[in-house]
């Protein structure tokens, strides 16, 4: 898309489609941005929506991919209370086994960074959740195959 316009997001809103994730980045072509939008809906609706997005004047091309045609490579950050690192042994194991990194530590909290496939992030989230996650954020850049 030329010019980073997000006006077309209304096309999703008017159909009550929740946007699972939205990623905007520079593309491999100068002055062209790439929007990656993940939604959960039927293929029929995605077909219609893609047509309606593509006819927006600034949009060069719009495609859609189904779940099994998509590569997800995600990054996630987990903010966790620092005292848990000492009180809950299991957390240290999770860090080790998940190949995640501690990117910052303070008296109150530390931040874990993890990149990987979508299910790996989901798994780590489920493991940490019982101990209390102060903040969680994930990015979802992905490609259609």
């Amino acid at each position, binding site marked *: 898309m030329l010019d980073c316009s997000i*006006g077309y997001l209304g096309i999703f809103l008017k159909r009550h489609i929740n946007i699972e994730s939205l990623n905007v980045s520079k593309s491999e072509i100068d002055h062209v941005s790439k929007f990656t939008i993940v939604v959960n809906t039927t293929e029929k609706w995605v077909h*219609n929506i893609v*047509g309606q997005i593509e006819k927006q004047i600034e949009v060069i091309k719009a495609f859609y991919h189904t779940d099994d045609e998509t590569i997800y490579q995600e990054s996630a950050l987990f903010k966790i209370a620092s005292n848990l690192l000492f009180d809950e042994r299991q957390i240290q194991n999770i860090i080790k086994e998940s190949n995640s990194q501690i990117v910052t530590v303070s008296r109150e909290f530390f931040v874990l960074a993890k990149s990987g496939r979508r299910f790996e992030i989901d798994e780590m989230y489920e493991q940490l959740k019982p101990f209390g996650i102060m903040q969680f954020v994930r990015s979802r850049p992905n490609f259609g195959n």
Partner: protein
Amino acid sequence: METLKEKKTAQKTKKSIRISGAEAIIHCLLAEGVDLIYGYPGGAIMPVYDELYKFQDKLTHILTRHEQGATHAAQGYARVSGRVGVAMATSGPGATNLVTGLADAQIDSTPLVCITGQVPRHLLGSDAFQETDIIGISTPVTKWNYQVTKASEIPEIMAKAFYIAKSGRPGPVLVDITKNAQFDELDFTYTKCNGVRSYKPAPKPDADALKQAADLINNAKKPLIVWGQGVILGKAEEELKELVEKAGIPAAWTIMGASALDSEHPLNVGMVGMHGNYGPNLLTNECDVLIAIGMRFDDRVTGRLEDYAKQAKVIHFEIDPAEVNKNVHADVPVLGNSKETLSLILPLINPNSHKEWLQLFAEKYQIEYDTVIKNDIYPTKEGLTMGEVIEEINLASDQKAVIVTDVGQHRMIGCRYAKFKESKSNITSGGLGTMGFALPAAIGAKMGAMDREVVAIIGDGGYQMTIQELGVIFQHNVPVKIVVLNNDHLGMVRQWQELFFDRRYASTVMTNPDFVKIAEGYHIEAKRVTERKELKSTIQEMMASKNPYFLEVKVEKEDNVFPMIPSGAAVSEIRLK
């Protein structure tokens, strides 16, 4: 034709002039061939109005009485003339008042360029006086919009605006211009736009698709054409007629397609849709090949989709790829401009006639005539019907008038019974169904085709939504004929209440003012007809008048429009009563 080299030299040698942004806007309009605009001044657009004052010999500005009227007038103008309609308004409420007209033009593919003033660049986002985010507000209802904040952007953006509005599937464009950009100076040169990198106006027709479509048509036993406004927008009326005649195919129209083919053409089998004709609706579910041309399978046309033409192979001639397979699956999509695709398919079509199949349409018409049409246009009961008024207008105008309708029962009756000999003669708010459309649209239609008679047919409800535009008709002596079919009700809603809400007439009874006196207050000649014996002569008098004329006809209060496909029913479940 200029060569590319000549074009480049011409561009290079074009001398620029140093002028204000406001003056540049006028020069852009003139360069695009605009000589008429509709609008309403206000603080943030005043520099442009100041320039309009200086250029009034070249560019006529019509002051509508509300900004919504400006958009509908521009629509009426665009729809009869095939040119781009232009409307102008100030920021804030001026801009938001354009929204209904923009939405109407967007859904009915009408080329408009709307220019709005905006607060100065340094005040954007500060909730300044009369600041609204009109770009955010108008995005879903425009084909394209853009906010100009620097004077130097004006020529390129205006050129792009006109190009986008009229090319491909037309639509409304809004250009919002901050006040500083109107005051500041720029070095002005103008080059028309003929391409935008990320925008393909019309797909190139595909030879294989054309071949497949022709095979289906040539082998069809019971083919049916349904055409829409795409035929008119693509200027493909002649090609449609040739196809219909060569292949001998019955052809029906959507409300937006009306008038593209002579109403009395023997292969014209009438209107499809909720209040369309019995035959084409019913037989949509019996045809073996459905040939859709420049139409978008609106829900008012298809009824319940699960039971729409399931037995038929569908060929869809369409300029907008987003419309293909949106509502109805197309077995053969033929993408492209209708004039181009129809011209290309004509040589592939074998001459044919489908006499037995056509006979079915004639039989269904007879049933509809006996149960509905006869009573509508030749009533024997005492009260006047809307249908007989339309029939008298047909007779008095020799079927040559432009008929502008509002929204409601009178519109369905108007579109069912008005007869057309010329294309671009049926101006109505199709997709949006905007009450209040007709009066301002008729003003624009008359100004877009001064040599034609323009008759606005309006209900007593819709008339009062934009009644203030009588001021324009009076001030500029616009010789439109205004017919209010007064049943003292919001008739269509009342009909639904009668049929589907057990006659609970919630807020549909209207106590109306003296419409004749109101028109006379604007110095418009006005008459009221309450009895049948006065109808013919009064309509003849109205049509003979060279001036604006207002006619109120008191019609039966509780008439219903039939046939009807109830909301959610299938086309084959059409009711005659």
